[in-house]
């Protein structure tokens, strides 16, 4: 009698558990990945600031799936197979999107089945060429060349060029230990832009830092960046 009393909760639990049905959807398995490129060359941006939006029409209420773009211009999203529309939110990114025709505008149509790589071609205002970094004596030196891609009425001026120095290889505005800004008006020659940043005493000490140069374009919110470079002090 006593034993049966102990069994009762167990029986109840088993009964309750067996009532649960297994989720009948498999998890998404297909990865869509790629980079933001100009003529095949990746475009660097600030971490977590630019994103792509994926729309999948036909399933309930419309909402975008965000695919954030990493520092090196790459993105990836884990998705169900199906048809997607891929766009940039308006005015995001240090570039113009390429409009194919009046109907599709700048939307890319993706038919996803299995993993797929898709690079997104855009028209940047500027490309940063031949970035060189050197370090020593608590200083980071950088030199870059800038190529103006969009010209004429579409072109925009440079607001400033900035050298950011961080402790880790996430190099950005919010967390830098040193920053040097050169206003756009002070730049005479786009082929010879040199910047120097003084690195303060780091605590805890480390013998290296990470640096990258960003270019802020007038009336464009997001900046274009060089790849992150490790610099020994």
């Amino acid at each position, binding site marked *: 009698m006593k034993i049966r009393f102990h069994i009762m909760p167990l029986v109840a639990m088993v009964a309750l558990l067996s009532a649960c049905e297994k989720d009948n959807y498999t998890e998404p398995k297909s990865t869509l990945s790629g980079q933001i490129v100009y003529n095949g060359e990746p475009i660097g941006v600030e971490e977590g600031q630019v994103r792509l939006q994926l729309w999948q029409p036909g399933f309930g*209420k419309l909402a*975008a799936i965000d695919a954030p773009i990493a520092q090196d211009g790459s993105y990836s999203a884990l998705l169900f197979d199906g048809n997607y529309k891929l766009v940039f939110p308006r005015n*995001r990114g240090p570039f113009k999107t390429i409009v194919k025709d009046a109907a599709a505008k700048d939307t890319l149509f993706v038919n996803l089945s299995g993993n797929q790589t898709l690079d997104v071609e855009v028209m940047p205002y500027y490309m940063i060429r031949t970035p060189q970094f050197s370090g020593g004596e608590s200083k980071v030196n950088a030199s870059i060349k800038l190529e103006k891609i969009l010209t004429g009425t579409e072109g925009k001026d440079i607001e400033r060029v900035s050298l950011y120095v961080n402790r880790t290889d996430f190099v950005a505005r919010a967390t830098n230990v040193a920053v040097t800004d050169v206003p756009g008006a002070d730049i005479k020659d786009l082929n010879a832009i040199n910047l120097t940043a003084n690195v303060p005493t780091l605590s805890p000490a480390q013998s290296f830092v990470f640096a990258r140069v960003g270019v802020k374009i007038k009336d464009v*919110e997001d900046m274009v960046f060089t790849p992150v470079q490790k610099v020994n002090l």
Partner: protein
Amino acid sequence: MKKIFQILSIAVLTLGWSCNDDDFLNRPPTGQLSEDQIWTDEGQVLSVLGDLYNRYVDIATFKTIRIDNNDVPGWTTVGDFNEAFWSEAGRYNVFQNSGWDLKSWSHWDYAYIREMNLFIQKCTAADKLSPAVRERYLAEARFLRASYYFELVKRMGGVPLILEPMVYDYSGDPSYLQHPRAKESEIYDFVIKEAEEIKDKLPATPGEKSRATKAAALAMEVRAALYAGSIAKYGVNTPAVSLPGGEVGIPANMANGYYTKALAAAKEIITGKAGVYALYTKKPDLSENFASIFYDKANNSEVIFVEDFKLQSGKVHYFTGWNQPRYGAEEEEGGRINPSLQFVEAFEKLDNTFAPIPTTNANGTPIYYTDQTDIFAGRDARLAGTVILPGTTFKSRKVDIWAGYQLANGTVISGDDRGAQKTLPGKTVPEQVVGFDGPIDGFEFTAQTGFYLRKYLDPVLGSGQRGVNSEVWLVRYRYAEVLLNAAEAAFELGQAAEAAGYMNQVRERAGLVKPLKGSDINFDRIVHERRVELAFEGHVLYDMKRWRIAHQIMDGNAITAAEVSKDLGKATKRNTQPWGLWSYKIYDPGSANNGKWIFKPVKLSRVTGSDRFQLGNYYSYIDDAIISNNPKLVRNPNQ
């Protein structure tokens, strides 16, 4: 057995027959009032109106509000945008991220609008009410509706302008209920037009604070016209923040028209056409006087429109408990809003110049002060009226804010608990080495930046107690803001001398007796005056947005020590992180400096992020569900 059954049957049938079913089922409910009962009785209509008043939306509020399915206490919305640091462990994350979600500040309550529209429809038809009363109720409802549309346009840009209660016909096609967004300028025009139409239907009674009055309608008109004017004027600086259909952005050529309307409406209040309002000047101590504006409810000549609270009525708030100085507080908590050093330094010296709080001489040696409050001497009286400075008192108790002892060799002796004790060199008995109010880095509810908030704190005993709470009102419109709005509108219209006249009234009340001339007025002055006069009253976000300077002030760069005190009074001065100012007592027996005070700016260790205001933050994200339900809505720019 059979007999019992028969008797029972007869009894049941008799009883059943004796009931009058119709009467029984048609009794009026005792828990509800019918439409007829409400719309024939003035008192009942007023209580419906009271509910609409109660749902008024503010950005800075004392009440707990719901944001993204989280209950957020009102004090967090009061002390935002790095004007203050939040001394509460659970909320340090605000200073560790780097900006705001695109959905921040979004609002879209068309159920509220529908209920206001229903009220207006039913009240218009309620012919049993006396015409005068009905007209006032209607004007009040229209005031509330315009206020909410104003709130929406500030946050979302142009929204669908719905002025009738819409009804679904169950046909399966809801498309006739879907309205596109109006232009941003059209919503501002609506607010201004409503204010013009209702102002003479509302009483011109300065004693009335919690219900709409003529002055409240005019004050709303002034603010709305000023906002629209500045969006038109300064929108050119951010061409990306606009939509081709005008849902966001106002054409630049409309600026002067709006500024003219703002100035005209402000003059109606200033010249007394809406009843006599004046700056509050009851008390001789100017700082005390400034603090009193917000808690003195007796014949307050300055306050125009408020959300009122009342003790023992159920409508009270705990703002004082949240933010009171911790030492000797009525509950074991408080001190959540710590004004930042940059905010404190924004207050001018009495000769109208800007200067950092002087901690060191020109050659870098610290300045020794006999009294803790000396370092703040000779400044705008609003500083001590807005901020509880170290060495001052609240509820006749001195706040105990000091970070430790500094020895002659520069060593600091401090503790990690409130009022911690240690033995100083050369002594045998331990003594207190840090204030009971801190500052201790990362120790919540103490003055971590070295300051507490004073504005809106209730000096009445018991106001910081959970069981009592406070009845301090939330000021939505006050006369000083009307003056500053008039000054800004006049300045933008090129009437600098007139602008100086309005601004000088406000500054004189703050102890700045040297009047500014017309030639002294510039954009930076306008921005600065609003920042110090209207701090913590919910203006800072909308001001930064309409002048399109938010992305410059909060550009995502950390603030360096050298930068904290630079460019004071400049409108676009970077303000991405709050800094603190800690005071130390000198322990150097035998020296003349023994017992004196020195001050050091500090960056708190909990502040690791720096804020970046994105262009997409200028107008909040319209929820995907809303756009799915109404495909005629266009999305806001940069999102």
